């Protein structure tokens, strides 16, 4: 389904807050948003799997924490 539009301004602001000296190309924030979506996707999938393994119908914080540890950036 369609989600909201990407918060481009927020993304740029976030990047600026971390790295003020860094610039971003024109469509860069879109790709950043894409990367963010995929990151959340992977995190959600992993958390979902953890919840299933725990025979839980909901995703609990411990599932999310375990999922975050598995997802490795680089």
């Amino acid at each position: 389904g369609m989600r909201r539009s990407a918060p481009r301004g927020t993304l740029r602001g976030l990047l600026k807050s971390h790295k003020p000296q860094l610039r971003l190309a024109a469509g860069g924030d879109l790709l950043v948003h894409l990367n963010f979506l995929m990151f959340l996707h992977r995190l959600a999938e992993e958390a979902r799997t953890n919840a299933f393994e725990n025979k839980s119908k909901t995703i609990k914080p411990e599932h999310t924490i375990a999922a975050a540890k598995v997802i490795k950036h680089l």
Partner: protein
Amino acid sequence: MLEGPVQAVLAPGEHRVHNGARQLLGSGRIRRRGPGSVGAASVAAGQGEPGSGSPGQRGHSQARLHSVHPRLCHVGEPRAGPGSPLLSEAVAFAGPGTGGVEQPVLLADLLTELGLGQAQAADAALHLLHLHLQQRDDVALLVELPQQLLRRGARRQRVRVVGGASFQRTFLPYPYRHRQPPGPGPGYHRRGPQLHLHRQVDGLHVLGRAPCRGLGGGAGALSGGGGRSGSSGGGGGGAGAACGPRRLALVDAAQGEDGGHPHQSRPGSGRDVAAAARRAPLRQQPAAFPDVDNDTPRVLLRRVIRNQPQVSPLAPPVADHKETEDAPSEPSSRRTSSMVELQLPDIVPEDTSISTFRMTRSRKKLSISQFERAADKRLPQNQAHSTLDSTLARSLRMSLGSVLAPDTVEKKGLLRRPKNRKAIDIAAFEGGVEQNMQRKAQNYLVDLQTASVIEAATATSDAEIMLNNTELFVQPQSVEQNQKKLSALEPQLSESKTPVQRSEISNATQEEGKLVGRVSSVGTDEGRTRRYSEEELINDGEHVDNMAHVSQKTSANQGEDEQGYSQQSEPMEQLSTSEEVAGTMEHHTNAGYSEHLEKKLTEKAESQIIMSPEEEGVAEGSVKHQDSPKPEPEMARSARAGSLSRHSHAFSSFEKSGTKPSEEAVEQADELLEDGAVMGELDGSEEESTEDETEMEGQESEEGSMKTPTFVRAPAYHPLPLLSTPHSAKPAAPASPLQPQQAKPVPKTSRKSQKKKREPALASSYIKQIFRHYAKMPVTRDAYQIIEKCCEKYFKQLSDDLEAYAHHAGRKTVEMADLELLMRRQRLVTDKMPLRVLIERYLPMEYRKLLIPVAIREEDLLPEKCRVTSQVSEIGDPNGTVNRTPGNPTQLLAAMFASLTSFAQH
């Protein structure tokens, strides 16, 4: 014809070879010699093959000349076979090339023998070849090569007759010719590929040629097997594309047989005679083998076969060109040969590796089972779960490679969870109760404000209870109501000093009043607060103990006590809070400020709940230090009541210090509110997540107030450094470890708006929405906190990585290439999954259009996917960073589908 070459071959006059050849040849029709007659050689060859066809040789790859040779050898073995053995042996001799020099001699002998019976020899050779061809492809190969070499029309004809299709197939004199020249090879004879035939090839060639010129040529070729390398190369080249593999096989065999045999310069184009003649002198081959005379051709052949590298019949027909000088030979053959050779060694290490791996695995299993037993023993309780846990543990160990520790922890965790839960439940219950009481107190305060407190001194309990939920948000009216109530409560307060109710009520009122006071007590005098505090003290005389405890206890204790009290005196609290409110209201002359503050109160109602206890403590502490122990009970009450009172206390403390201008107080109030709200929320959400699953943040804050009161006070203390004494901060500071962390950043924001600017955080609702969509499962609120943290970490790491990539490229701007590289590193983009597909899959249409300018075209032109994708891939990537979809039609289809589906979604 035969005679010529045969004679040439025989020219060198190697006796033994001649003898051998004689033997071979003689077996045939010639019958002159031994058992083998050349005449029957062909027949025998054909017969011998099936009869004697070495099983091993048959297993050889088709292209293996080796196999052919052995076959021939075998064929030649049975002496019974009339002429075939001779021929076969001759060929075998030639093939193995053990005695390179000898072979030609042999062949020469053969030739001579054959030549003797020229017609017969020719027929025999032809027949032999024919038989070979019929029976095996190898033979065909053998035949082909010579055929290829046979460029002369006459020979061709003969060859065709013999080999038929195979011959024709492989008969590529011209290509062969072409190939030869480029080939290096010192001794290579460009002219006569035939001459360059490898030994085997030569042999074959001889055979093939037999019909043409009798076996002379063939024999010569065979005999020249020593120069197989050259011949094979030439033969290989000659074979051309038609029978590449076969050629390779032949070459392979030739190579193997050559074994370092120096490239023999074959006789020039000279037909059979010349070739034979030249081959004859090529007997430079080292006599690696004993005298031919002593050893039968079969023995020689066997030796050769043994020494030659064995190529798996299953392997692709590749010839080992490594040693060949057949540079002209097709490079593919070399490659294949190298591949074949490599395959063999590859198989071996694989096996070893696999074997070792299995061994380790088995060891692991043993240890795990032992572990399980030990674990089971250790956990008698878990016997019921032992099996499960053991299996789980085993799997975990296997996967994680960890020792028992995590497993036992898990096991124990599984078992202990119920126990822990009980304990937690109790504590949580208490905390929840306290919080509820506080909340209710706050609600009651609000209710009191709205309704007449006096009237509802006792009845308000019910009314308050009823109005509990709604009153909380009716605060805007509270200002006036508070004033009324305060005024009304005051007399009550003064009247009812001893009764617990009143005390409680006073507490409640105090709390509320304090809160309101904070709102409106910008410029209240200390005396007024003191007065109220005194009143509160008097009223709360009974609660002095608690208050004292409260003042000294940690926030948790306070909370509990408060809750305990609140439980008992809910209705009283209402009154007390209302009283307090009324009292404070009196003091606060700045209605405007109060209104303003109250508005903020409403906004931060939830935080207030936390704030009130915090501020109570703060105010109490400050008051205490500043004035007297009076604030203690105030603090106690306020803590019970909730945030409101604390706020008021805070303000009272401000007032007492007398250093706080109204504005400052307001600011501080705001800060406190904000801080409290922030901290309360954070604390509540983080700490009380397990307990409070409701959506009410207030509840969370209340639950967390047990742990957070001191911590919540921390921010309250921080903005009060000017006003309050450090004493007040002390009790709160050490209470919660979170104070320093959250208190510091929070106070920095003086304005609510600044909070966002300081931390441009993504909207949590946005993250929630996305995560929920991807999770497809209900997600607890606490889990969202974790996700929020993960996102923060993610963005931090993302910015670091992008900066590194841009810096690595010598740029200060992050480009699309950097982002694609980032995704590649995260294995989101692979060779099979180009970036463009991901863009089409995840991003909405408008963004896709931006990133892929020709996105639309790609979708519209679905039928022309092949053309379009190429266009799109080229056009759509202005930076040249987007991966190009490979020309694979399936992938193109997939890309088109992806684009179409995404397009259809919009």
